[in-house]
Each structure stands twice: as structure tokens, then as C-alpha cells.
């Protein structure tokens, strides 16, 4: 099987797309202010990131332990079989998320209510 030119174009195109999106995300990321906790799509709690706390969240199929350490949030323990949520590590910037699919849990970092525009008329 030969590598055709279109393959290279495809791969580089996708890499470029991924790179552009990643760079755009890095440049527009805001410092996080709150960790918003949603179970099955509805918000159940919102914790400011500048506090230190540990809280247990009961999701669809079990529980997750959310830890906020004053500047970031992470899931330290969970009842799900994969523990992917625990392995995600800490999140702190706006838009970052930790997801636990079995428990239908999403922890998303939200910045302050200011958006990119200062005024809209």
C-alpha cells in the first residue's frame, strides 16, 4: 500500500485544524472563577475556585468526590469502573471540564460573567 498525497493532505489538514483550535482555546482561556457541577445536564452546585473544600456528589450511577484546593478542581475519588474522571487531573481555566460518563457528571470551570465583548448595543 502506498501512501498517497491525499493522505498527507488529510493528516496535515486535521493536525492543522487541531492545532488551530487548540491555540484558539489557549488564547481565549480565562481564569476560572467557579466550578459548575452538573448531573444529567442540570446544575446541582457551583463552588468558587478560591475556596478549599471536599464534597461528595451523587450521580446517576454512583458518586464522585470533588476537591477544590483554592485554585483548581479535580475529582479525587469515584465509584465508576474506569476512574477516567479521577485521571483527568486538575482543571482551572474557563471551559475546561471533567466528565464522568457513568455518573453523568460534568464539572465545568466557568469564569466571571464578563465575556469577550465589553458592550453590546
Amino acid at each position, binding site marked *: *500500500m502506498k501512501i498517497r498525497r*491525499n493522505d498527507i493532505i488529510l493528516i496535515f489538514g*486535521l493536525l492543522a485544524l487541531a492545532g488551530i483550535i*487548540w491555540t484558539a482555546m489557549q488564547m481565549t482561556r480565562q481564569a476560572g472563577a467557579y466550578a459548575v457541577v452538573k448531573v444529567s445536564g442540570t446544575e446541582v452546585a457551583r463552588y468558587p475556585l478560591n475556596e478549599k473544600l471536599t464534597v461528595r456528589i451523587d450521580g446517576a450511577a454512583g458518586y464522585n468526590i470533588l476537591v477544590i484546593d483554592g485554585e483548581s478542581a479535580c475529582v479525587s475519588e469515584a465509584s465508576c469502573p*474506569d476512574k477516567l474522571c479521577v485521571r*483527568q487531573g486538575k482543571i482551572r481555566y474557563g471551559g475546561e471540564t471533567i*466528565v464522568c*460518563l457513568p455518573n453523568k457528571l460534568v464539572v465545568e470551570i466557568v469564569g466571571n460573567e464578563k465575556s469577550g465583548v465589553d458592550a453590546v448595543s
Partner: protein
Amino acid sequence: MKIYRTALYGMLVALAAIMSYVELLIPFSVGIPGVKPGLANIVIVFALYCMGTRAAGVISLVRVMLIAATFGNAFSFIYSLAGAMLSLAVMVLMKRTGKFSISGVSVAGGVSHNLAQILVAAAVMKTGGLMYYFPVICISGIAAGASIGLLAALLTKRLGRFVRQRV
């Protein structure tokens, strides 16, 4: 030669299912749900190139149902099905253009497989923020797709002539 086709499909479905099972055993992950090597796709791509679209579709579908029934639940079934169907559709389209090699088609399949799973996850969790994972999806889809494609191409070359019938 219906018996031949049944036996062949059965064998390939079993093979694809075993690949999926092995993947489940090895905790391969980068922390993002749904990202995996996609070993079962070796069989799917092989079927696509040696036996045709319908064979690949049937084998893929039956494999998804089998794994979901034995090791999955309702949710993993939806994710798996979405990934398999979208990636197959994309691969069939790419193959039809005739402009890509097996690896290229497989890369497109890998990326679209991950993309479908993230889209389903975003819909289920009602969160748009999951698009944050898009760059990772691309990279892992490319890596997995390219390797899977290479293996499938080798298999096609060596085993294709024993199977190459539009069954």
C-alpha cells in the same frame, strides 16, 4: 454460497468482538472518555476493502450489539453505535472517492469515530463544553487510524485473495 458467507461473517464478527474485549481488558486511556485504539476496526476496514460495504456494515453492527450485550450497558451501546456508524459512513465515502489509501481512509474513520462519541456525550450530558476535547480527538484519531489502517492494509494484501468475493 450462503453458508460460506454466514461462516465468514461469523468468524469476522467473533474476531472483531475479541479485539474489542481485549481493549476493554487493557486500561488504555488518556483520561478522555471514549478514546481507544479501536482494534476492532482492523477487521472492519479489512472487510470494507475485501468484501464490500454491506459486509463491513453488518459485521460492524453485529459486533457493537454483541459487545454491548455482553460487556456494556445502554449508554455504552449508544456511544459505540454512534462511533461505529459514523466512522463507517465516513470511511465508505472516503473509499468511494478513490483518492485515499487504506491508511488515509482509516485515519478519517478514527477521527470520526471519536468525534461521534464526543457528540453523543455532549448531547447526553447536555453540555457544549465537551468540544474542548476536539484537538485530542483529532490527534488520537489520526494515530489510531493510521496504525489500524496499516495493519488492515497488510492483512488485505496477504489474506485478501482468499476472501475477495463480493459476498
